[in-house]
């Protein structure tokens, strides 16, 4: 059965590997140059003193290529689910060839398991190799930008891509088994895959591990002003923690009580007057220069009881997150596959 499943899957797998070879060539041609540039400019920037200029300049290299490789890594699992997963069973059901397959001397459960396993493994290998190449290629860029947890970057690197690919195949197979029509199954698979991925990014991923809290004193140099319907409030700075995922920053007292608007108004009655009437509502500003002393006084008063609390995932959690996300998607793939087996065993209606 494995040989038969491979006979059916080998053309598409060959196409995928041809694509991978192309990416490998591009990456091999441009990657070493990036490493060289990084070593020459960014790695030694501390000695020259001006690291941010050097980093900014370095990050302008191969920016377009980097974006496209990122898009490719994001898209490949979805495309695999669309073109490999969804038609895998749906096409057999639609064209009637399942009646040929199920009456050979192989149970339909085994038929399903082997087919899904062969295509699933192929998908994971393709996605894994692609991610490996892009992760390697982009490592100087990622090191320089120090933002590995950010939304597109986390999804484009490392081992999570393997999980996405496995999940996409299982999802496509399950949808195909239920819908039994190739084209609608492909459309539904893509839509469902996008929904799951977006839900993961915005709601699920942040709950893998409890975040850390960093408490720091208020610093008038970095605090901004926000104006809203109620007047002025203080704007907490975004802390610079390399490669961390910052959930939020806010002011709170020892008991965790957030800084209320009324407290600011009471402690800093001159702030509004000094600004000379409220600026347009909702605008977020860096405190203007002539307000420095007023703001200073204000921050000093507020800092007596309040401090800045940053909720974040440190860079050290990065690989834990990668493994958890891989596990979540592989687990979902296994659950979907188990459902498919149950569904096909109970007999298609």
């Amino acid at each position, binding site marked *: *059965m494995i*040989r*038969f499943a491979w*006979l*059916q899957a080998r053309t598409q797998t060959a196409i995928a590997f041809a694509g991978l070879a192309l990416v490998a060539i591009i990456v091999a041609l441009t990657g070493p140059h990036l490493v060289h540039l990084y070593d020459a400019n960014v790695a030694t920037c501390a000695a020259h003193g001006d690291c941010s200029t050097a980093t900014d300049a370095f990050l302008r290299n191969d920016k377009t290529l980097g974006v496209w490789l990122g898009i490719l890594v994001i898209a490949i699992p979805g495309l695999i689910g669309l073109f490999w997963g969804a038609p895998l069973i749906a096409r057999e059901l639609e*064209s*009637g*060839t399942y*009646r*040929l397959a*199920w*009456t*050979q*001397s*192989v*149970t*339909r459960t*085994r038929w399903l398991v082997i087919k899904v396993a062969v295509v699933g493994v192929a998908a994971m290998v393709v996605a894994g190799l692609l991610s490996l190449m892009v992760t390697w290629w982009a490592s100087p860029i990622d090191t320089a930008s120090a933002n590995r947890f950010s939304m597109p970057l986390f999804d484009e690197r490392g081992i999570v891509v393997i999980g996405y690919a496995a999940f996409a195949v299982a999802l496509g197979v399950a949808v195909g088994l239920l819908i039994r029509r190739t084209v609608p199954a492909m459309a539904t698979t893509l839509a469902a895959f996008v929904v799951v991925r977006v839900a993961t990014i915005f709601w699920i991923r942040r709950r893998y591990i409890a975040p850390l809290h960093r408490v720091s004193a208020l610093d008038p140099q970095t605090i901004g002003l926000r104006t809203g319907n109620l007047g002025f409030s203080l704007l907490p700075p975004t802390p610079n923690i390399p490669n961390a995922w910052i959930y939020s920053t806010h002011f709170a007292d020892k008991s965790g009580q957030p800084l209320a608007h009324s407290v600011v108004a009471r402690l800093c009655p001159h702030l509004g007057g000094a600004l000379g009437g409220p600026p347009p509502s909702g605008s977020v500003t860096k405190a203007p220069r002539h307000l420095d002393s007023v703001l200073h006084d204000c921050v000093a008063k507020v800092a007596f009881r309040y401090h800045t609390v940053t909720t974040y995932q440190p860079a050290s959690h990065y690989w834990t997150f990668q493994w958890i996300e891989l596990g979540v998607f592989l687990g979902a793939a296994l659950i979907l596959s188990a459902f498919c087996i149950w569904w096909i065993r*109970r*007999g*298609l*209606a």
Partner: protein
Amino acid sequence: MTAALETNGLGKRYGRRWALQDCNLSIPEGRVVGLVGPNGAGKTTLLHLAVGMLAPTVGTISVLGNRPADGPAQLARVGFVAQETPVYPRLTVAQHLRMAGWLNPNWDAELAESRIGRLDLDPGQRAGSLSGGQRAQLVLTLAIAKRPELLILDEPVASLDPLARREFLQDLMEVVAVQGVSVVLSSHLVSDLERVCDFLVVLTASHVQLAGEASDLLASHHHLSGPRLVGTLPSGIEVIEQTHTDKQSVLLVRSEGSLPFLDPMWSVKPVTMDDLVLAYMRQARGVELPARSPLEVLR
């Protein structure tokens, strides 16, 4: 001796519609069974139940003494040629044979290759570009070279032209003679089956109307024609179908054993399988139709 196919109160329901109901059959091994009925009568449902592609809603079915598709060994004992003879369009003829070789433990590669050679199929040709007749031959080859004990064919000749139809059935009969397999084949046309089958099952409106050895059925049914029927016929004669004019009655009757003594004014003629099947199909409709009914068109 185990039955090739045995069903007990078998029924299959799709949603609220029964595709097959109250099916009780016992077909001995070694027969060529013709399963006849109009389109939508439940033939495919019955055959899919027999190969285990469907599970019964009620009742039981056993094939060669076992539950259908109950593991690889049972699957290996039954060959199946599905309706419209599906093949993988992008695989070649040779790849189909290789696939069947991988998937079937009793695969007879020599038989398969010699058949393909004899049928003049190009092994390198993609199955998607075969003609309907060639495709049917390919699928039949796959089913035969699997060396099954029972061969089930669902409307194998429906899409073939008359010549290909005849060749296909002739070829099938040769295989039956050589390999001694039991065969169940369905068709909505009696004419396809009457030359080849020795056991008949008539299925109409999801019910089995008639089942039995073809020779027994032909021996126990008669055409009677005579003056306008008044009163009743002797006991032991069941009227399957009757048509009356003012002066004359034409009956198709069944009698267990030999026909009892009848008034000599009745003339008795044997029935053909065609007559028999059509009469039972009409009976299932619950209406008495004039001699030229729309069902005749089926012929």
